[in-house]
């Protein structure tokens, strides 16, 4: 791919907020996002996701390194970048004292649409995001989901080349989340490149073509959701037991059988082991349990989830026993 095929590029970007108590915002971020794709940026709290989004959208100046969006340098050609991007910040940034309709008309005008067109577009977008009825109400009266959708609509007024969405579905109910996902998906189909930060692995799994895992201001792992899962190891065997004692004796048996690195979910008496040969391992475990008189409630073979991949990579430098607690 040539340079112009990338909608977003960052090369060794550093950003320090200048407070010695905090870690650096970004510490050598390097990434490339091909045009027309959805890229997921994952990371624990404070990893630097918002900092990255702010630098790409020219709200924040980088200290070192280079970054370009839509082919323009974010530092030298900020204005050109701003003409081509949409930003949906971590907190819905719409004017609460205006109505939804007034918000969209205003942003349309600021995106240089003539009055008539701005009004037409406001009407369209309200319809598209199911806000037609709420359009004449003050945003202060909106629910969190409605606000989020209005926020998203406001950033789509002139179908941006690159859209940045910072945790778009945090605090939304499942239905509203689905709607936001659909909106993002249809944007991609229209050719927009999307950089999506999220805390929800499921969201990245569903939407993103590629995923970068960010930690302490730099990318520690990158790939498609599938490749990340397989890089983490093969399939997993989940065994749920009735009591805690059963769980610990089962764990002892599995320690012999599995490929190491298994995790125990103590609250649910569930053990999860990576296995290399699927049915073989299942059969061996089953017969070992039968021999020792253990009755598992449930035995399931499955692929690793992105949650496990995420936890694995983001906690790797911490001290961890082989007995990791998996979180729901």
């Amino acid at each position: 791919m040539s340079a112009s095929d990338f909608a977003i590029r960052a090369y060794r970007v550093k950003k320090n907020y200048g407070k010695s108590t905090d870690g650096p915002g970004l510490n050598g971020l390097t990434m490339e996002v091909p045009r027309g794709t959805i890229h997921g940026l994952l990371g624990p709290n404070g990893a630097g996701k918002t900092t990255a989004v702010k630098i790409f959208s020219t709200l924040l100046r980088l200290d070192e390194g280079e970054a370009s969006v839509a082919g323009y340098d974010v530092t030298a050609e900020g204005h050109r970048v701003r003409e081509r991007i949409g930003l949906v910040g971590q907190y819905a940034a719409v004017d609460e004292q205006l109505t939804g309709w007034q918000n969209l008309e205003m942003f349309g005008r600021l995106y240089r649409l003539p009055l008539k067109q701005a009004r037409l577009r406001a009407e369209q977008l309200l319809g598209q995001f199911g806000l037609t009825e709420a359009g004449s109400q003050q945003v202060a009266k909106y629910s969190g989901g409605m606000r989020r959708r209005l926020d998203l609509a406001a950033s789509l007024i002139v179908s941006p080349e690159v859209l940045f969405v910072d945790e778009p579905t945090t605090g939304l109910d499942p239905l509203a989340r689905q709607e936001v996902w659909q909106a993002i998906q249809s944007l991609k189909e229209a050719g927009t490149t999307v950089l999506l930060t999220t805390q929800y692995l499921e969201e990245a799994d569903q939407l993103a073509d590629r995923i970068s895992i960010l930690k302490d201001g730099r990318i520690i792992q990158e790939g498609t959701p599938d490749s990340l899962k397989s890089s983490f190891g093969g399939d997993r065997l989940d065994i749920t037991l009735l009591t805690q004692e059963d769980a610990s004796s089962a764990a002892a048996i599995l320690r012999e059988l599995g490929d190491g690195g298994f995790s125990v979910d103590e609250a649910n008496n569930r053990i999860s082991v990576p296995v290399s040969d699927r049915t073989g391992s299942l059969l061996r475990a089953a017969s070992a349990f039968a021999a020792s008189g253990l009755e598992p409630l449930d035995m399931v073979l499955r692929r690793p989830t992105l949650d496990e991949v995420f936890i694995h990579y983001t906690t790797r430098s911490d001290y961890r026993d082989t007995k990791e607690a998996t979180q729901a």
Partner: protein
Amino acid sequence: MTTQAKGLTATPPRASRFRFALVDVWVLTKRELLHWIGNPWGIIIGLLFPVLMVLMFGFLFGGAMSVPGGGSYFDFLMPGMFAMTMFFGVESTVLAITTDASKGVTDRFRSLPIHASSVVLGRCMVDMLNSVLALAVLMVTGLLLGWRWNGAWEHALLAVGLLLLLRFALLWVGIFIGLSARNAQAVSALQILVWPIGFLSNVFVDTSTMPAWLGAIASFNPLSSTATATRELFMNPGAQGDTWISQSAMLLAVAWPIVLLAIFFPLAVRRYRRLNR
């Protein structure tokens, strides 16, 4: 690779860029006017508050006040209240700026392809308009209650001009503080501070009645100079003083705002640009 339809986002030529800048300022001004319509009580209370203070100080405390050099206390009070109203305007500027910043609205504006100054200019237009309204309401109230100006029309206009000049300068102080504060606690601290600063002037009492050191501080308050100059222009009592600072009130009523502007205008602009520190 996908190509993007971007007919709507092409860079306009220089001439139309200026026109766009005007449109931006208008759109952002209209936004604030829509706030007034959406929440009329906010603006009505804001306009009535100085009236309430006039009633309180003019009639409740006014009987106990005497004006050095003679004259009615009410005539002394009104020009002071005009200046005070300009000063209290800072609070609404700061509040509006911090609200936008904390809600992320400022960041959204900054991610748009509009000129950075449009946002601040929109704020400026609305706050000045608000101050003109507040001044008009207060003047009519004063006239109804017996305040008179005795000078010429052009002097009265000049007085209004000086008041608005002070407001304009304080506007940039407010923008700077608002951009620096960026949270609600700082704003409420400021709201408390506004009172002693406002009272530490010759708005309500002549500085010659204060302890000497306090009087000296109060007479250096920019509010005092504007109030004294306004009294002089309206030919209301309290304008004649024996210190250099009160005799040069006219000059200082122009110089103070210019000094404030010279300091806070660049600071505010820089602050806005440096939000991306």
